[in-house]
């Protein structure tokens, strides 16, 4: 019975975190982009600094008519938005905020996170295919090509962190962390950041939803709350990737304050990476589709393999 209560409480807490953190990132993105691009729009709603912009967005989405096109594969079209949010929710559940502060702790939580994150992208593919729309289909194809290409460097550098720690559990990796990792794993962290931005299909890697070419890519036919769920999944993805990088490269809860305040460090570290991902969006223009593939295969994959070699040799040398 106690176990059951614990499971329910943990699930509800993960759900609460999932509903709060992505919205915080969304709000931050409005404000940061508003400031960086000198835009006045996001500063209007609600008076002070446009604090109510996100609420206004939510109300707008809920009031829009839900349209399922006649040409669409209706069942797949309706269910596609669910995959993204459920997958990122399951990914968020294993990210540790402290030695004993996590949703779920399983021995292979890193592998779990990577595997379940891959399922989330299926939602985008389903949306692209089921819409019965040429823009959506082209966007879906680009999504598929981009995600398989960038999944690879991402998995390789995650393996590098796992090798450095000798553990596949995020809690175990954070325990094994020491400050040398900041230099030792630096190339891996940079590859992770670039690949994660591409995996989230955010500029400069937003070819699948390129608005000037494909309207909104796989999401062209979506309206109202279903469309909003795709956006929620994108922001949840930023949260998951930022906090995963913080857990792998910056030692999660490690910091000068006592361990009971570890979650604060984790929030700060993850928040910094989320800010950087927003910043990247403002700073760089979109890549062309073939350039984007070259970056992955001829840039990130070799660097990730080099990082693997550095890590493995380092582990063997230091553990002798």
């Amino acid at each position: 019975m106690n176990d059951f209560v614990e499971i329910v409480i943990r699930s509800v807490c993960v759900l609460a975190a999932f509903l709060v953190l992505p919205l915080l990132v969304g709000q931050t993105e409005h404000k940061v982009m508003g400031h960086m691009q000198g835009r006045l729009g996001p500063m209007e709603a609600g008076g002070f600094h446009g604090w109510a912009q996100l609420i206004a967005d939510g109300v707008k989405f809920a009031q829009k008519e839900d349209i399922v096109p006649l040409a669409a594969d209706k069942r797949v079209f309706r269910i596609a938005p669910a995959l993204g949010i459920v997958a990122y929710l399951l990914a968020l559940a294993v990210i540790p905020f402290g030695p004993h502060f996590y949703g779920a702790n399983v021995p292979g939580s890193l592998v779990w996170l990577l595997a379940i994150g891959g399922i989330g992208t299926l939602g985008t593919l389903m949306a692209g295919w089921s819409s019965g729309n040429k823009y959506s289909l082209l966007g879906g194809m680009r999504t598929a090509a981009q995600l398989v290409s960038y999944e690879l460097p991402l998995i390789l550098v995650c393996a590098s962190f796992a090798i450095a720690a000798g553990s596949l559990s995020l809690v175990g990796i954070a325990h094994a962390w020491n400050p040398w990792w900041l230099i030792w794993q630096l190339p891996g962290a940079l590859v992770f950041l670039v690949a994660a931005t591409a995996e989230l299909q955010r500029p400069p890697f937003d070819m699948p939803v390129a608005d000037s070419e494909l309207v909104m890519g796989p999401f062209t036919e979506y309206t109202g709350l279903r469309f909003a769920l795709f956006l929620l999944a994108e922001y949840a993805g930023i949260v998951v990737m930022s906090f995963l990088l913080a857990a792998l490269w910056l030692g999660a809860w490690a910091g000068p304050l006592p361990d009971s305040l570890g979650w604060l460090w984790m929030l700060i570290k993850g928040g910094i990476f989320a800010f950087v991902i927003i910043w990247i969006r403002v700073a760089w223009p979109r890549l062309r589709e073939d350039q984007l593939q070259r970056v992955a295969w001829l840039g990130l994959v070799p660097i990730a393999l080099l990082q693997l070699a550095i890590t493995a040799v380092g582990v063997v040398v230091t553990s002798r």
Partner: protein
Amino acid sequence: MSSGVTGYLVLLGVGVAGAVLFGAAMISRRLLAPRAPGLAKLTTYESGVDPVQGGWAQTHFRYITYAFLYVIFAVDAVYLFPWALVLRDHSLGVASLVEMAIFVVVVLVGLLHAARRGLLTWGTRSDDH
């Protein structure tokens, strides 16, 4: 965590919570959103022009090469994760390092071959696949 299974049960619970979230969102959409379907509204969107033929069309073959490359490297990555757990073992460490290096180099030669044959460059060659 009282037992090893609890973690997985929490993940199951989180999955249920996610399904409930989606269900609740869809119910609230049904309650809040207006409904006024019309033929023009339900037509496929093609920037205001009447749609030409169907939406499911053939697309470019190029993408499949990335899928092939990915499958090869994904198998490589599958072997990396268990390796992470045995690398510190004194009897296996150095030997597995050398073996893994040979394995990765073989795969890497494949990637270089693909790059040299122009599979990763588009449109500049006249005999492009």
